[in-house]
């Protein structure tokens, strides 16, 4: 283990996270009467992790094993992974901030330590998912994240739906990860290894076992697809999103999806790509037609997400379907199989983080007051709570992908990648989906502005913190819509996925 020290250097953020987790548990025991300090501890832990993530090297392998290929690590540190880790840290910090003002979370103050401990468990799981280059590590970190999120989905226990969400998530998740594990075992049988690079090397030799390989791929995709909630593995999404506490819903919709996408991209790029040419186009190993599979899945995903969202009256549920649709758009970035697509996903994800968090923040603030997320609560809101309503409109417009918001830039890059790959038909389908999506986003706008305020209309005056939080999300959405250069530059510098170039 000569490289142990070196490996530990590479996993500093994860170490910090683990320490923070333990500190949280200890603090929870120490301050069992007044737990006000716990969120700040969590924040400090997250910020420290963020700093260490920023300090991470741009490439490196941790925990190298001696294999038939020489030394191959099971944990890759690269700019791509760092990008997603930063996204996860940002969203985690936001979640901690959200939890300050969420009524649901405030009602379970005595268990707040456990709440943050579980969130840290999730973060840790996601960090490992993002960096893992070994299927068994992928599986276990996925489970780490899932187990935490199962509990978190039902954590508040305030209403029936919390428990129900938790149970559904558990069963669905367990089956999906079970399928994935079985798929992993098949890959293991076919190649003798679970390491991406070795699997890749072996798959490059043509062999006759393509059916089994396809089987394994589909099963593994079931596990990943469930995390990114792509059709047909999305069914848990709306139920769990609706049932879970809103902070957790938000977190699931962005962070865990980010981890899922990072995994999907890394898995495909390092396992199924034989080489990537000078323009960044990937040559996919012919043994499995990932491209067609993902095209169909992404089209189905966005179509189903959008069309079903048309009928939703619960905002959380509506945003759940919208997040399914967004998963579809994001998958389009994968199916072009090029660095361009990855760039588009990176840009889109950051934008998605801003706008989805923004939208959920507003929903949370409203539901703090009304106790529900029904769309009728929003009638006339534009007249009583202008700041929130205007911000909500901006987030929704951004989600729909209209200029001059950042959402447009995200979509633009997706479509640029598609047109570059000459996949015009897919681009048209996606654009038509955008039009459909506009309908339900605008429906919320309609309720806020076109419906008259009544005596039941809420007046929500956000406190200073929440106002700042809203602005912190709104302003980048607008600024990146007009000046997106820094975003693109950052994403451009984060394209490096450790692999066999």
């Amino acid at each position: 283990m000569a490289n142990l020290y070196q490996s530990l250097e590479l996993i500093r953020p994860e170490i910090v996270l683990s320490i923070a987790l333990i500190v949280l548990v200890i603090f929870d025991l120490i301050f069992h009467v007044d737990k006000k300090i716990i969120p700040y501890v969590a924040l400090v832990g997250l910020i420290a992790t963020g700093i260490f993530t920023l300090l991470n090297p741009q490439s490196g392998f941790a925990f190298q094993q001696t294999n038939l290929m020489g030394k191959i690590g099971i944990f890759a540190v690269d700019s791509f992974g760092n990008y997603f880790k930063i996204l996860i840290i940002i969203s985690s910090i936001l979640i901690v901030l959200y939890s300050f003002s969420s009524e649901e979370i405030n009602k379970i103050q005595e268990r707040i330590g456990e709440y943050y401990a579980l969130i840290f468990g999730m973060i840790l799981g996601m960090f490992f998912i993002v960096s893992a280059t070994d299927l068994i590590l992928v599986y276990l970190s996925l489970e780490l994240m899932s187990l935490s999120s199962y509990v978190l989905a039902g954590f508040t226990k305030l209403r029936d739906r919390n428990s129900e969400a938790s149970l559904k998530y558990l069963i669905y998740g367990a089956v999906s990860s079970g399928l994935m594990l079985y798929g992993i075992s098949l890959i293991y049988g076919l190649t003798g290894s679970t390491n991406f690079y070795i699997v890749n090397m072996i798959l490059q030799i043509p062999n006759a076992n393509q059916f089994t390989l396809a089987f394994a791929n589909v099963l593994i995709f079931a596990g990943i697809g469930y995390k990114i909630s792509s059709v047909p593995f999305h069914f848990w999404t709306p139920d769990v999103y609706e049932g879970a506490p809103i902070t957790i819903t938000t977190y699931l919709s962005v962070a865990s999806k980010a981890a899922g996408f990072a995994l999907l991209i890394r898995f495909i790029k390092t396992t199924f790509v034989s080489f990537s040419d000078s323009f960044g186009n990937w040559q996919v190993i012919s043994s499995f037609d990932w491209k067609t599979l993902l095209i169909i899945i992404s089209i189905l995903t966005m179509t189903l997400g959008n069309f079903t969202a048309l009928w939703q009256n619960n905002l959380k549920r509506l945003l759940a379907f919208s997040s399914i649709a967004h998963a579809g758009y994001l998958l389009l970035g994968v199916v072009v199989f090029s660095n361009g697509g990855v760039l588009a996903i990176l840009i889109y994800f950051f934008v998605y983080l801003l706008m989805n968090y923004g939208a959920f923040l507003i929903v949370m603030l409203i539901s703090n007051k009304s106790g529900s997320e029904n769309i009728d609560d929003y009638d006339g809101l534009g007249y009583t709570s202008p700041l929130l309503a205007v911000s909500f409109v901006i987030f929704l417009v951004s989600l729909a992908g209209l200029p001059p918001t950042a959402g447009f830039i995200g979509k633009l890059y997706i479509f640029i990648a598609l047109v570059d790959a000459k996949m015009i038909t897919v681009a048209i389908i996606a654009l038509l989906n955008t039009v459909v999506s506009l309908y339900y986003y605008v429906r919320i706008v309609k309720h806020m502005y076109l419906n008259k305020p009544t005596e039941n209309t809420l007046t929500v005056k956000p406190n200073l913190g929440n106002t700042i939080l809203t602005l912190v999300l709104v302003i980048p959405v607008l600024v990146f819509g007009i000046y997106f250069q820094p975003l693109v530059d950052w994403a451009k510098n984060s394209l490096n996925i450790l692999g066999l170039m």
Partner: protein
Amino acid sequence: MNYYDILFYLFAIITLVSAGFVVTTRNVIYSAFFLLFTFFGVAGIYVLLAADFLAVVQIMVYVGGILILLLFGVMLTNKITNVDIRTGTSNLLPASIAIGLLMGALVSAMIYTGWKVQPASEIPDTSIKNLGALLITDYLLIFELLGILLLIALIGAASIARRDKE
């Protein structure tokens, strides 16, 4: 057919028959007991596959831990006075079709795939030592990760199952 084969079939039949009862019997308690046999059967299979340590772990963890846990679950979620703890079924037809197709596909994939089969270089007496070595070398990271995972499971389970202060 040698002893090895006979043992295999014995364990296989125990495993599958009891697993079949697990998923079909209407009585939850029976089901749990059949699961016990399944676990034993699997442990036996492990033995046949030269995974002695694993077989022990299987019995200790599954039978000693998980199964008991499940039984507690059964007890806690049913009224004790109710001797006949039965449960219904749902989705029988679509499930049968789906699972039939799935099983067919899986079994045929298993049979017709040209798996890599290499004669074992040398079977060590026991796997414990090797496993132990691997755990603190190549799989150290995962090993640590599992530690965290168990911690999280502990916190989570305690948090969710605990009776709230009313």
